[in-house]
């Protein structure tokens, strides 16, 4: 397929995932904050901005929860806001009209038009729960429609890879920011926070089913990092990306992207949870973020911007 189309599909996957993850994170944070003092609320806002890697971009005050919400939901100048992620996904999809199913285009376009029609600046403060739910539902609708209407060809692989890599990054950052606050919180507060962490990636119920027990830090960490079955665990996303990548490359020689990704997967799979919780988790997660970023860069070079393609690639006929 055309490199440009592949890149647009990959980013469509990322933007939709970003919108969904942001909505989920804000939803959980918002409800958690209702019980917090002003001081704690400001800290919670700072944490959210950090999870989304937007702490330097936000120029307002973290004490002003409404400003933080506006920035993360409405701000068109913030490429990480829900509105702009959806608008970008839609612009990409428009350029992919001949590539994606009509149903998928309609799902993305309706999502965008729905958000446009809503007076978000009002709704997000009056009915935050409804807005977040709507965003999550629409994102899942888009993902579901893609899964049910697109052939499992290269296009679908790029879309899926974008989604999985974005999600792996998000779960990693979430763990990174949140675990500091968790290990030393006392009693009931601790439970609530661990529960909130799990809820921000829709993992609470799945976790309880898996471990049938009260939340335990080492088990939460194991679940979110290593679970092979839970679709939002880091390992699940990375292995999924590995599978899609293998389908895209038909020579026997491993690409840089595959090599890097294989190394990251091994690093996660064989990590020592005990010693991570003993103190090195922060460094480990920082490194993991950097690794995932590198994988993205390698995918970019291999598929989208192979500049000297005339020399590197043999001529192929379709």
């Amino acid at each position, binding site marked *: 397929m055309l490199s440009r*189309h592949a890149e647009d599909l990959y980013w469509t996957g990322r933007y939709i995932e970003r919108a969904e993850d942001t909505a989920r994170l804000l939803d959980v944070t918002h409800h958690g904050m209702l019980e917090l003092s002003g001081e704690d609320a400001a800290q919670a806002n700072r944490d959210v901005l950090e999870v989304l890697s937007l702490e330097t971009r936000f120029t307002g005050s973290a004490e002003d929860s409404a400003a933080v919400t506006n920035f993360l939901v409405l701000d068109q100048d913030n490429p990480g806001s829900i509105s702009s992620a959806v608008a970008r996904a839609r612009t990409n999809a428009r350029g992919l009209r*001949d590539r994606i199913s009509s149903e998928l285009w309609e799902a993305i*376009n309706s999502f965008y038009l729905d958000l446009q029609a809503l007076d978000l600046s009002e709704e997000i403060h009056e009915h935050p729960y409804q807005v977040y739910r709507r965003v999550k539902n629409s994102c899942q609708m888009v993902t579901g429609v893609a899964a049910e209407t697109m052939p499992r060809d290269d296009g679908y692989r790029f879309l899926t890879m974008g989604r999985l890599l974005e999600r792996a990054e998000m779960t990693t950052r979430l763990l990174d920011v949140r675990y500091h606050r968790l290990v030393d919180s006392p009693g009931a507060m601790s439970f609530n926070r661990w529960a909130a962490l799990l809820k921000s990636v829709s993992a609470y119920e799945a976790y309880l089913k898996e471990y049938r027990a009260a939340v335990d830090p080492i088990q939460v960490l194991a679940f979110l990092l290593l679970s092979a079955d839970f679709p939002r665990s880091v390992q699940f996303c990375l292995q999924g990306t590995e599978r899609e990548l293998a389908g895209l490359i038909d020579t026997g020689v491993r690409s840089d992207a595959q090599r890097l990704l294989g190394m990251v997967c091994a690093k996660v799979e064989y990590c020592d949870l005990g010693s991570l919780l003993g103190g090195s988790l922060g460094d480990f997660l920082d490194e993991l973020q950097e690794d995932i970023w590198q994988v993205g860069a390698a995918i970019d070079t291999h598929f989208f911007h192979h500049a000297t393609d005339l020399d590197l690639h043999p001529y192929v006929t379709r």
Partner: protein
Amino acid sequence: MLKTTFAEAYDNGEPRLHYRALMERLHSLAPGDLQGRARLVESTFRTLGITFAVSGREEGLERTWPMDLVPRIIPGSEWEIIEAGLKQRVRALNLFLDDLYVGAQAALHDGVIPRWVVESADGYLREAHGLRAPQGAHCVVAGIDLIRDGGGVYRVLEDNLRVPSGVSYVLENRVAMTRALPIAFRNHAVRPVSHYGASLLTALRSIAPTASGDPTVVVLTPGIANSAYFEHAFLARQMGVELVEGRDLVVQDQVLFMRTTRGLARVDVVYSRVGDEFLDPVVFRHDSLLGIPGIVSAYRAGNVTIANAIGNGAADDKAVYAYVPDMIRYFLAEEPILPNVTTYLPWQNEDREQIFDRLEELVVKPVAEAGGYGIVIGSQADRATLEDLRAKLTAQPRGYIAQETIQLSTHPTLIDASLEERHIDLRPFVLTGEDIEVIPGGLTRVALPEGSLIVNSSQGGGSKDTWVLEDDGAVATR
């Protein structure tokens, strides 16, 4: 000169035979029902993204092109004549272009059309000389604009031989119609249009350079910001081929390739929706970012075919238009089946006198403008405009043509909750490959403001589904 207006659906207040069943059905619906259905169509178009960008406005302003719910109906026997006339005209235009750019320029030598008129046409390109069009198909896709005069005679108003647009609306309007008025549709034996994509692909594959066994066809678009982007994507999807932009293509050793995730893939035929002058910065506009450096040399080497061919503007110029009937007589030795609108050329002495004597009765058009811009309708112009026009005609006779004012036929059209008469035209699409094919009907455009004669989408126009019947009248209402 006929000043009357031809009503498509009615004759002396009675519906014409082929409109009876439709009018009966429309009048049987409760008031407001049609409006509800029209709103449904509008919202469907918006969800599907069947929109065009309004040029000159900021990005993001997308409008749907209103589709009127009352279809235009053409009886089968009437269509046979139109179809024959269109094929004849496009055949002659292709022969003319081949003679001009590839052949011996016999038509110019024999004085069928003055050389200077052709060579001063905006779309005439010296660079196109020697560029061979397989099958002689310089215009693979032609859009020929037709109007009906006061006597109901179909006349050619304009030829569009470069990048005629609008065919996506023909197909989408049909789908919308079958949903909005299913019963009325079922009661008529309407000729299908949905095979357009397949026919276009067949035509494009037939003009591939001879070397390739299984030619790869692509649609080339200027990109998402282009007002007709929806159509470009639509056509690529209908044909199942890639929609590419200039940056996706690269020429190496006079061979055209597209950049794919698995390396470079060879391209044999480009259906280009990019204007000639933007196609190749090496040959034409050096500042073009839409084009592909070297594509014209690949074309010249016979390694790729571009459709429509480069330089077609030499044949759809408004002044050259006046000579098309003579082209038909010269190349085909036939009388034109579809007449032109009577046209006067300011550089011919006898015509100039007519123009100056009857300026307030005629329509004057600048030859270089499209989209209905710059047209002066004599009867509606004030004194100052006419004086200004006289000066322009004297200074720049090659820049204008004058035509008899033709009212354009009218057709019942849903305005709010009632049916009112509005002016319409028709753009049929003619495909040339190994064979020549006309898609039944075409795009009927309607001028929505009362009394307006300008049907262009940019100036308040809408469109209608166009039904060509298998027979000459409606099937009995079921």
